[in-house]
């Protein structure tokens, strides 16, 4: 387990939380999976709950507005020194993800953890 001062690995902007609440009201519970490379990749993919089958090696990064946010375990290893910030941007999603409300899609911004945060995230 992480230490008590450990920062969240994934957080969301107010706009993202609002978009999720709208989606949940319309479609029911949703889930996120951070996508990898190519084409419309490297975006957070949003699905109806259970639409994407979570494997035994996937990593639960955290929850946003009660919705789980997962990442592939290999990708987690390459990303774990950064905090993911879920946000929304203009335009419909280009791939298989649900949109973030009308004419919007979810995006990820990243922030590198500082030394104190990395220490706090280190398993106790």
């Amino acid at each position, binding site marked *: 387990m992480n230490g008590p001062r450990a920062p969240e690995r994934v957080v969301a902007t107010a706009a993202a939380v609002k978009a999720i609440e709208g989606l949940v009201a319309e479609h029911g519970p949703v889930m996120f999976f951070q996508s*990898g*490379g190519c*084409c419309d990749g490297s975006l957070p993919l949003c699905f109806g709950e259970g639409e*994407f089958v979570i494997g035994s090696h996937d990593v639960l990064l955290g929850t946003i507005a009660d919705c789980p946010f997962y990442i592939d375990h290999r990708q987690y290893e390459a990303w774990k020194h950064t905090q993911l910030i879920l946000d929304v941007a203009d335009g419909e999603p280009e*791939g298989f993800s649900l*949109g973030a409300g009308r004419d919007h899609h979810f995006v990820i911004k990243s922030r590198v953890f500082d030394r104190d945060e990395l220490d706090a995230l280190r398993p106790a």
Partner: protein
Amino acid sequence: MTDILTKPTQDTGREGGAETGVFVAPGRPGSLVSLKPRYQNFIGGTWVAPVKGEYMKDVSPVTGEAFCEVARSTKEDVELALDAAHRARKAWGETSLTERAAVLNKIADVIEANIPMLAVAESWENGKPVRETLAADIPLAVDHFRYFAGATRSLEGRTSEIDKDTVAYHFHEPLGVVGQIIPFNFPILMAAWKIAPALAAGNCTVVKPASPTPWSILKLAELLEDVVPAGVLNIITGPGAEIGKALASSPRIAKIGFTGETTTGRLIMQYAAENLIPSTVELGGKSPNIFFADVMNADDEFLDKAIEGLVLYAFNKGEVCTCPSRALIAESIYDEFMGRCLDRIKKIKQGNPLDPTTMIGAQVSTQQMEKITSYVDIGLQEGAQCLIGGSRVRFDGELADGYYFAPTVLKGNNKMRVFQEEIFGPVLAATTFKDEAEALEIANDTLYGLGAGVWTRDGNLAYRMGRSIQAGRVWTNCYHLYPAGAAFGGYKISGVGRENHQMMLEHYSQTKNLLVSYSTKPLGFF
């Protein structure tokens, strides 16, 4: 005088000269490309309006403005396309190889006769430079159809003599109706990569082009109305979450082919598993391009080729799954070699993709622009050094709202996220290595395994590296060549299956075994 020079001519479709002029944008007077305000789905050899009557705008990244509408299809339209494909399935599957090959060759001939028109259409929709579509995308699509026309006729079933009176015959049979999902980076060539083998093997297909590039392939379909039998090729446009899902998860397809993003690839395989059907998925990459010290042993044509080999990260604006996006350079030559490469990168001409002298055009969408920008940001946060570029480029006039990003080089180390993730933009992550062992270690320190490049004058070294790099394609003293006949596909999480080769016909066929006894003797069990 200006009027004469800028007056477009119907023959060349260019302004400012028949040889060097800028191509006129689709739909404008004098353009090679006609444009309708609205496009429907191509189903059963004809144009069919979407059931719910909804359309979506198609934006040109050249200007950032919408230029036409395409069908915003729903699952009802997927069913219509599948209906048409299933109606055509039996007859096409039983069509002789002679006739099937003739249809593929006819497709190739029609594309070849329209190379400039399709090149301009694809450039306008995708933002890639027209000199690339003229020289690579469209001619390669032509050759691809011809290759599979030949490949399917040369593919033979095998027979085995099990014993003196027992023979096993193996026949290739079509799968039936397949679904194929195409990426945005090569809207016509990637469609050709999928459609050609599917049709050659006797299947009918329902194709979903990528959401940012649904139109240029419809321009191709307009040319094929009377070439491909009705229902053999169907194209429907719309959002991935709606029709991509409906197609990939349909119990009415016998196979799903997909090129795109890695997590979506997993989703596609999940849908295929639900229906117990095969899938071919070609996914992401983070390809190493390795330059050994001996490339600088002489200042000659080969060195010039190697420098170009590094700068090829900017080919198609970096929107290539095999983009050589990690340059690994021998420490002893780094300063001099990178200096030469940066000089070359400074000479890249960026601008209107329809100008045949333009070398890098516009990123396909605002979403891609945002992603590239955020990656450069995180690269700098992680301590990478920006050697050139690093930001969006703004042009004046009509291009002012287009999606242009400067060719960028970041120097750092392989643990940084810009070395581990596919940026899908003109951003090179460069680092150094001390020796062969370290070069190999860095090359393989990635989730992906699609492409790689090795540059050296030492043939033995090139062979050792090529065999040790965990990637499906290792370009050796070359890069970004995509000839039909060279198998293409990924190791690790870069995908499952191969394209671009005769073996693709196996991916699109069933194996029928007839086990025949020519003996009259009973087994004697009962």
